[in-house]
């Protein structure tokens, strides 16, 4: 693949980077990344991936844009309220970068479609807002042997980790979803919008670095962010002997934050 004139210019600040260069940019342009959820995490993640020139971005979301989303889900605009999120996100990505092939799945990510959808992607970003979905994505990626980035956000806190086959998975941190009453209800919880952006863009950076093959990913460690005191720390996570080979029952405890 040869970059054309406008691509050279568009991606020049990538190409300048010694660790990226032309070959790194070409890897990005040949890559396929799936973003599950186009909310607080998925919106900035997908937007940056689009800007970076990822060849194919898959977007899964069954929701429509709500006015209360706009405080943090920066890929959606006021005029999009009521429209399917995946369509809104696709349009923005293509306005930002028409070269990106955006594939939309206006549906929920479920046990039934999980493996079929992820199989064609090189990297998966978990931008969902429920424990059930997070465990499902974890299990699907472990079973399907796919690398993925996990992230979760609440109030001023965020956490994120990356899994590639052979390293610790989300279940090595949390064995099972928490019981229902242990999770703050939507009315109790809130989120500082920019925190969603911080974590989402970390996820995008993980995807980019994985695809180019540079640096140290957030594997076997959990990055914990406290944006109230603005402290970052990482916690080591040991890969356990958990053998995930089939799906379990994932009880939905929805919290519409991300």
């Amino acid at each position, binding site marked *: 693949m*040869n*970059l*054309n*004139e406008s691509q*050279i*210019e568009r991606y*020049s600040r990538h*190409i*300048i980077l*010694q660790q990226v*260069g*032309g*070959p790194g940019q070409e890897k990005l342009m040949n890559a*396929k990344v799936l973003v599950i959820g186009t909310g607080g995490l998925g919106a900035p993640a997908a937007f940056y991936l689009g800007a970076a020139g990822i060849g*194919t971005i*898959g977007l899964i979301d069954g929701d429509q844009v709500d006015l209360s989303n706009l405080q943090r889900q920066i890929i959606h605009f006021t005029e999009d309220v009521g429209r399917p999120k995946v*369509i809104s996100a696709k349009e923005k990505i293509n306005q930002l970068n028409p070269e990106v*092939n955006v*594939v*939309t799945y206006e549906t929920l990510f479920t046990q039934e479609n999980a493996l079929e*959808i992820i*199989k*064609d992607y090189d990297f998966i970003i978990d931008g969902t807002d429920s424990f059930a979905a997070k465990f499902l994505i974890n299990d699907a990626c472990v079973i399907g042997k796919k690398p993925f980035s996990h992230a979760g956000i609440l109030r001023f806190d965020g956490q994120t980790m990356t899994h590639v086959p052979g390293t610790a998975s989300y279940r090595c941190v949390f064995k099972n979803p928490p019981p229902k009453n242990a999770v703050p209800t939507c009315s109790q919880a809130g989120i500082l919008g920019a925190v969603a952006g911080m974590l989402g863009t970390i996820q995008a950076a993980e995807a980019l670095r994985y695809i180019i093959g540079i640096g140290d990913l957030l594997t076997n460690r959990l990055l914990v962010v406290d944006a109230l005191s603005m402290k970052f720390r990482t916690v080591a996570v040991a890969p356990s002997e958990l053998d995930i080979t089939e799906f379990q029952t994932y009880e939905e405890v929805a919290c519409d934050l991300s």
Partner: protein
Amino acid sequence: MRFYESASTLEKEQDQFDLDMKSFAAGEINPVKFKAIRVAHGVYEQRQEHTYMIRIRCAGGGITPSQLKKVAELGAQYGSGEVHFTTRCEVQVHNVLLQNVIKVIRGLNEVGLSSRGGGGNTIRNILCPSKSGVDPDEAFDVTPYTVALTTRMIQEEDSWNLPRKFKIAFSHSEKDVAFTQTTCLGFVARVKDGQKGFAVYCAGGMGAKPMVGHQLFDFIPDDQVYHVTRAMKLMFDKHGNRRSKFSSRIKFLWKKLDREDFEARFNEDYLPIKGDKSLNLVLPEIENSANDTDLVVEPAEGPEFALWKQRFVSAQKQEGLYCIKVPLQLGDLLSKDAYQLCDFLDHFGENTIRCDRGQNMRIRNIPEKYLGNLYHVMTKLDHTLVQFPAFISNMINCTGAQTCKLGICLPRGLSTEIRERLDKTDLDLERLSGFRLNMSGCPNTCGMHHVADLGFFGKISRKSGNLYPAYNVLAGAKTGQHGQTEYAKKLGEVAAHHIPDFVADFLGNYLEEKEDHDSYQAYLDAGGNDLIKALCEQYKEVPEYEEDARFYTDFGAKKRLSLDELGSAECSAGIFDMIGVDQKSIQAIEKAFDQTTDKDNDLYKVVFHSARMLLVTRGLDAKTDEQAFQLFAKHFIQAGLIDESYLTLVNAAKQRDLSALSANESQVFELAKAVNTLYKSMDDSLRFKVEKKTPETAQKTDSDEVLEKDFRGVACPMNFVKTKLVLDTLQAGQQLQILLDDGAPIENVPNSVKLEGHQVLKQEQDGSGHWRVLIQKVNG
């Protein structure tokens, strides 16, 4: 009974298609490539993303009750719960989601139907009149030829990759009801000295550039049908234009070659096979008779039954048997209605249904005593036009912009409005049973407006910058005798919302004067055409958007007419309408520029129209002048399609700085010219052929050969970016010499190259101040 046999390779092709669909869903196949794959399987994407229409081949319009029932079931299970009858005598299932497409296609296999070749560059559904075989006035039944030719053609591998579609039609009598001069290849049945045979026409076609077909043979014996078709196919395959899909049909080949050359090339392929009897078609026996049935007779009587018979029933040439039209609303037959009809028809045999070109269903081979039974069945159906005069169900319309990506207007909505408007008049529509009122949503001729008595095709109009739906008006097609076909002529245009009144006024006058003229044509010549032109004037204007917004939303549309979806659609002629408006405005100003008193304002207008003209090709619609300038600067000047030197001019216009424009008068007209030139270079995918600076790509060189690149005039950091990209293509040890400007470039680039680990062997300044830097690649 089957109306064709599918190729033995079909199921294998379907397996591949299934895989392709999955790859497409996973983003591995891009939409344009997938389109080529799916269209060949008769699968079209509807306006709504990821929703598809599946078109099913029905040779000669024939389909058996059990086949139709299966299609209805598939429609109920996976589609919109109905079967759609098309003007090409096929049936379609609409609103099928991607994941269900293969289920529908495989379901069709069970009853021997196929969607293969429903679209794409291949032999499309072969037509014959829906009354062929039962019409007392026919020369002979052409259905067996349609069936045998279809089966033969879809078995042949070389039928699937023609330059463009190839349409064939048969007429069963000199009256040419199949319009053989409007199609790529047409056969008209005639008997000469006791020998069955055909007059042959070719290179006709409707569409946006309609051409009337030419006679190729006055008579060929009936055993030559395959030979002629095969030769035409081979010739088309070899000589058709594959580069541009807008000039690839056989009609364009004729236009390019003229008769002599066309015939010569045809004969190259025809004469060698002409005498080969082994190629003769094996004609199936298609019997028109009714099965014996013990169905209980349910008689009907009274004036309503008599009216029904008058409207829809005609006697067949087979004594005692009847042919009945089932008038469908907009070509749609509800699945549950289809079940009722098919169950009834099962009593009379498999050869009982034809699709007709008027998007209706025609039943045949019903014994007279059972007409009452059929009357009871038909009047109980939910969704037909059985209570209306035949004129209403004879109106033809394409599906329009609701589902079709090419569509501009919504003729389905229009058709309903016309029906409701006429229903409020006391016009005697029974006297218009043969009248053809045809409408298409765009210049493509799915609604067959070229062969209409009164035809409409959709266009976009604009008032004070607001778009509103409108239609071109045509009238007076001459059909009904082969060899003498003439297309309807365009007489004017009318706002969509005025058409119901327009039609009511026009038909009112025609009905009043009908008896004074020998024919419709005579009526048109004597004043009908003038009336249409006058009515166009009367009904062209619309109120301002602020006064009455209804005119700006098409019938049946949920929102105002806009260009939102045109950009991504296939190249639609609607776009050319839009471009034409600006182009003509510029020409008009240029022409009258010497006489004008308001030169400043005219110059402003030229810049404005130049700026707006091609925005539509990018799917952009400027709501204000200012926006037009802004979008033009962004998408045409900054994108490198129009020279940067015009930016000042465009910005001046944006500020309404008229003195700046008159100071640069010649540049204003140069801009218009540049835009025009760009437009001329546009290809069929709306892309422009602009000489782009060729990207810097390094060829592999021997290590002792030094590659040289000139990056003078390239600013930081792009000079480094380009250097780096060239170095990426080299192997360790190879050298690269670059030319750089003095100043920041020479201060930065060599150091950056060193930081990447490469060696800078030499850097020297030449007499003109430029720098020559020799680099050796280090890491591999």
